[in-house]
């Protein structure tokens, strides 16, 4: 446990020492929240969907967590380039412990950013409707774990930062747009719903919505189950690739 803790602690320290990352990763979701929230708000209302900010905020929280989590994998590549990865890889620590420590570290940071977006959306009019809304923190955490593990897994296979960023940009947008973060899945063409249902973020956004404003598409238990299972899958996959890693 101490080993996982120290790996976690290292990432938290690094994060808080880098102010630019703190601010930089909030800017994009904030832009989406404000531009789309106010831009599409009136149309959404007219179409009978109700208050769009109410609907959008959980999706944007999910997006903020998705982006930060996936990109947290880049630290593996930094560590490789600065040599610190060797220090970790020769240590008598199981690869699963490394994976869990890193994922928890990245996830903590991502959840913090999710909470910041949550607070900001509160300022622009978002109000949780559900009495058990703190449940949303569990969903934030699950989304973060899942995508941190995925980001770290991908990063463990790569050696250059540019390549990683390309792949991540290629992943983030489809994952985000197909997740139903921006629009309700109800009433969409069947094919679209099929695609959305293989996007893990759909279940995250759905879970957030269920625990914040009600109106789940898949159902809260399905959301929990699928997020948990996929997160474990990526953790195991990541630690497998870690065990194959060479320096």
């Amino acid at each position: 446990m101490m080993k996982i803790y120290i790996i976690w602690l290292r990432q938290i320290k690094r994060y808080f020492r880098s102010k630019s990352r703190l601010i930089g990763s909030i800017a994009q979701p904030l832009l989406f929240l404000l531009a789309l929230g106010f831009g599409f708000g009136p149309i959404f209302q007219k179409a009978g969907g109700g208050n769009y900010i109410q609907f959008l905020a959980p999706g944007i929280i999910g997006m903020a967590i998705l982006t930060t989590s996936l990109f947290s994998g880049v630290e593996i590549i930094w560590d490789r380039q600065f040599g610190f990865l060797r220090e970790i890889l020769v240590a008598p620590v199981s690869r699963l412990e490394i994976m869990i420590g890193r994922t928890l570290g990245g996830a903590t940071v991502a959840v913090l950013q999710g909470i910041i977006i949550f607070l900001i959306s509160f300022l622009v009019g978002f109000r949780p409707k559900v009495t058990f809304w703190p449940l949303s923190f569990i969903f934030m955490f699950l989304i973060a774990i899942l995508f941190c593990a995925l980001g770290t897994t991908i990063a463990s296979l790569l050696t250059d930062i540019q390549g990683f960023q390309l792949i991540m940009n290629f992943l983030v947008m489809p994952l985000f747009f197909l997740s139903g973060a921006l629009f309700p899945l109800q009433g969409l063409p069947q094919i679209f719903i099929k695609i959305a249902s293989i996007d893990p973020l759909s279940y995250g956004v759905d879970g957030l919505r269920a625990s914040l404003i009600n109106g789940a598409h898949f159902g809260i238990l399905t959301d929990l189950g699928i997020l948990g299972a996929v997160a474990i899958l990526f953790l195991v996959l990541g630690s497998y690739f870690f065990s194959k890693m060479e320096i």
Partner: protein
Amino acid sequence: MRDNIIEVKNLTKKFGDFVAVDRISFDVKKGEIFALLGPNGAGKTTTIKMLTTVLHPTEGQIKLNGFDVVEEPTKTRQSFGIVFQDYSLDDELTAWENMEFHGVLYQVPKEVRHPRIEYLLKLVELWQRRNDLVKNFSGGMKRRLETARGLLHHPKILFLDEPTLGLDPQTRNLIWSYIKNLNKEEEITVFFTTHYMEEAEKMADRLAIIDHGKIIIQGTPAELKEKTKTQSLEDAFIKLTGRQMREEDASPIDRMRMRRQAHFRR
């Protein structure tokens, strides 16, 4: 006779068509100080990497402390410590935090860890700077911190890849006397590579010279001088490996490139 703590048989590493290490075999006894010498690019670092589980051998077998390095990497890792040739510190952490991180990963109990960190940081004269971020350190300071970190957990086998490269003679002496002491008091086996021949002659119980991926001779420093009929180890070394200058060791980026080429060829 003492037991072997390192046993290497027919160890080979190829990067694509390039054979970096070519069927080498050697043993190191428990409690021994063993040096691996060789010109730049001879295969020293590649060998150490395979011994320390971060590079998978193409062929051959390595046993460390009784464990097969490929089959039981975690148990192997519990048996050794390593000081790398180039930096492996976290720049964004302080000197103390780097030490603490290492100590926790290697499960050194707090009561031992904290006094030992203090002792080692004082030994390498970084105690005053313990709360500074490593990114503000000079090259020599980083090197000293790195060495101190490698000594923190008193492993059964200590690997040192050019441990004193770029250190001034004072620090080099201090570090070596600490290592000698560890070797004697805790029976820690030391395996090191170096460019300094007088260092190898003075410190090593036995040594091997590697060139073009092959071990060309091994034995005690006295035996080597006798076999080559030379006065000093330096003369023996030059006699065996020739006067020609060598390519520098492949940088990490070169190695990545090599690996990528090897990967795409598959």
